[in-house]
């Protein structure tokens, strides 16, 4: 079994710390992180629907937390995570067709997804507070 080609001696892919940071790597990590955050958001969303069906008394308690600074902050971050996951998800659907995989294109679309995640919650906040 022992020898240059035994399973134990196969070369390993370099670990995360070895790589130079670049934006496409960040975009991949953020996709997974935002997905996990949206898992938590989906639990909260289901809970919100249950409480809404429960009645106005219970809903008032949840609504109070949602109106508080930490509730608004959480909703803001959920919208940011959703916007990022959406933009990067569309980016991956484009990748699946074989397009946009040149490093310069992939870098540009990764930056677009990150900027969209920053702009979308700000845009929604402006719409809800100053829009129609």
């Amino acid at each position: 079994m022992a020898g240059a080609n035994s399973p134990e001696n196969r070369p390993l892919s370099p670990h995360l710390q070895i790589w130079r940071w670049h934006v496409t790597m960040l975009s991949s990590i953020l996709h997974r992180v935002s997905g996990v955050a949206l898992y938590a958001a989906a639990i909260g969303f289901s809970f919100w629907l249950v409480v809404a069906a429960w009645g106005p008394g219970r809903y008032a308690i949840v609504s109070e937390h949602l109106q508080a600074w930490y509730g608004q902050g959480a909703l803001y971050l959920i919208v940011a995570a959703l916007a990022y996951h959406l933009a990067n998800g569309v980016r991956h659907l484009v990748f699946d067709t074989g397009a946009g995989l040149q490093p310069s294109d992939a870098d540009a679309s990764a930056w677009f997804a990150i900027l969209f995640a920053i702009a979308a919650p700000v845009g929604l906040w402006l719409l809800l507070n100053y829009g129609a």
Partner: protein
Amino acid sequence: MSQSQRTMRTPLGRVRHHGAAGEGTGHFIALRVTSIALAILAPWFVVSAGLSLRDGEYASVIDFLTEPVNAVGVVFLVAVSLYHMKLGMDEIIVDYIRRPAAKLMLMLLNAFAAWALGAAAIFSVLVLNFGA
């Protein structure tokens, strides 16, 4: 021995029937089909619910969720997003958890969580529309 070097599969893995389960393609397609649906459903919900619910009143929540188009949209959003969420978390579990027992437990927990959240959330929307 020489064959194991050519196929890149370890002898132990071959004996234990490790390797491709043959269901990855369906998983891959389901994740992408649900993502296309969510690219429409999620922005719709965030903007229309944001506009309808920004006053924080319970009556606005009831008005929004008892509008037939909204009720159907929210049921679709819950079902499709929880399915997408479950598939995505499966991928994360398979990537990071190596011990078979822990992997199986987490994947069961993930499936149960998705089904329980979906049942509770959809039941709540139905209660708001048809219940007392």
